């Protein structure tokens, strides 16, 4: 009816102005490439729509999978990788404390513990996150060493030189690359990661499933640990990442903070 139309349009315009007046919420950006192409995303015809809507971490992209396997299976037993989101959430809660599973968004949670060897890198991998995380952990280790109690000074006998003393420079003798290498050794980091149960949820492909040590699980665990720190830095900020580094990585490695020092 003619009388209804103007009311309907009035209603729609009113609600649209209300919508635009809202403050835009800062939402986490999508990791998918929605805006890159205006063409419809094409999925293989053999996959149903439920599979097409599954998140990236859950399935290999349809067009990247061959219909049947042509290469022989690798020798040794098959390696089973965790697919259960609950186990992953448990590990994050163990590592990051209560609500640890809500620190990172869904895709990034899986991306941080996915090594490049998993599924040929088709579902993403944590290289970039590990790169940033390693920089953060390295810097925090240097700062922690600077704030540590100074080593006993050996007086230079017979030397008449006195170095410049300043309270800001008091921790410098502790900072040496040997000390840092000892702290950030990949085997020590791997043991810290194993304490949180990361070795049961990381997604990777070992060379031999019955010899994980020889396949380099220590390196993969260290990479994942760095990647979690990097992911927290990108999603939650540097302050949160520094806190996680200090409390969850450096404290198990032997540092103790007597007071809050950055």
């Amino acid at each position, binding site marked *: 009816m003619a009388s209804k139309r103007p009311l309907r349009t009035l209603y729609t315009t009113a609600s649209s102005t209300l919508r635009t007046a809202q403050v835009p919420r*800062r939402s986490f*950006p999508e*990791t*998918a490439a929605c805006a890159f*192409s*205006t*063409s*419809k*995303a*094409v999925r293989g015809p053999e996959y149903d729509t439920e599979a097409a809507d599954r998140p990236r971490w859950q399935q290999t*992209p*349809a*067009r990247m999978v061959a219909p049947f396997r042509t290469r022989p299976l690798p020798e040794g037993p098959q390696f089973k990788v965790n697919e259960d989101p609950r186990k992953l959430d448990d590990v994050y809660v163990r590592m990051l404390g209560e609500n640890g599973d809500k620190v990172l968004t869904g*895709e990034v949670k899986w991306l941080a513990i996915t*090594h*490049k060897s998993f599924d*040929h*890198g088709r*579902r*993403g*991998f*944590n*290289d*970039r996150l590990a790169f*940033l995380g390693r*920089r*953060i952990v*390295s*810097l925090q280790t240097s*700062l922690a060493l600077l704030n*540590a*109690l100074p*080593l006993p000074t*050996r007086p230079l006998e*017979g*030397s008449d030189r006195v*170095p*410049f003393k*300043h309270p*800001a*420079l008091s921790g*410098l*003798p502790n900072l*040496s*690359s040997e000390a*840092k290498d*000892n702290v950030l050794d990949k085997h020590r980091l791997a043991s810290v990661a194993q304490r949180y149960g990361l070795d049961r949820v990381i997604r990777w492909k070992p060379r031999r499933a019955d010899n994980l040590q020889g396949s380099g699980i220590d390196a993969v665990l260290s*990479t994942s640990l760095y990647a979690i720190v990097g992911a927290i830095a*990108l*999603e*939650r*900020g*540097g*302050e*949160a990442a*520094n806190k996680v580094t200090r409390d969850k990585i450096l404290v198990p490695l*032997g*540092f*103790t*903070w007597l007071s809050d020092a950055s």
Partner: protein
Amino acid sequence: MKRIRISRCGSQLLAQPAHRRPTCPSAAAALQSNFTPHNYRIQSRPQSTAAAFSGSDLLNAQSEAESSGGARNRKPPPARAARTASTSPPQSIADLTKHRSPRPERAFGSAKLAALRSRLSLPQRFPLQSLARTLVHPSADADPDFNNSSLSILGANLLSYYTTEHLLCNYPRLPMPVVFAAQEAYIGPKALATIAGEWGIEAAAVPGEEVDPGLLQFDRLRSGDDVPAGLRHHEAPWKWNITVTHKILANDEFGSSTSNKNPQSLRGQAVPLEEAAQSFVRALIGSLHLHLGRPLVKRFFRDHFLSRHLDVDKLFDFRTPTRDLSRLCAREGFEPPVARLISETGRLSRHPVFIVGVYSGKDKLGEGAGSSLDEARFRAAAAALKGWYLYKPLEFTVPSSTEGEMDTSEWIPNLVDCGEVIV
């Protein structure tokens, strides 16, 4: 606060049990760096001590100098020599103490230092003695309390953190090899050497106590001599597959294994100017952080490093862009890319020009011009891949902006990309 304990092991291998010093490899370097033997005594007998003893016999020399009379049995300790010798060759006492830096008090008398401080617009509360210390490379003074080795470790960490977050927040999809190259372009050895030159740093001809504290002091490598072992390329065993992921974990921020992780190991060795300038810039950043705090370091970094222009798109080097693009479209669920000729001229002439576009469905992903059909197709695919990898968000906040801030309402979460396409 717990301190890092250097484990004391191997003391049973010492020839003189009266002087118990740790000799296990991890402590040996720390020991040698903190140990300045009786300078005046050693210098009075240069021929006997310097020529006769190597670095691993430091303890022998000292005990011999100290012990008054009494013949002691000095058993030559080959095992100890093997354990204390790390990657660098054993250095004599003469090597380690032949150079010294000017006394800290002389910093006030140096016009160059005061000029440098004001040229960099640093506040007056930044001490000149610290600025003088940043100019002393370990090759000019082996004592870690007088050289810039610790400061340069801290400074290198700060620089690489700020550069990494700048790159990853500006270009979230950048492939790792390009990230390495961009890091090297911003804060690599050559870049830092250029920056030091721009700041007007001059090098002393030979380091010593009498040089002006405002000069960069290092033991200069003579042309034609070998680069020290710490700066040489470390050959990995041939069986190792050095992947990018391995480089992220094991190598430095540029993905290279050639750069020196331990500045203190270069004491007593001649180094190129680039290495000394790099150590100065890093040490300056480290001392700024310690004396002046984080906000000023960030402003300094923005003014001196981020202000340098870098064409990130020139850092790409594609080998098979068509294959990469087709795998990328398959991964993201776009229609398979198809190359179409847009226009051409002079096909049968000597210099044809073909313009090819790569299309995914109705969208043109990239366009390229070339003198052959294949070249144009490759350039188009490369342009399409660059369009993907060089995505740049309009608004972003870097992680370090939240450090020390009470108010986190300005924080915008960054895009976390799943990684470059693996073929």
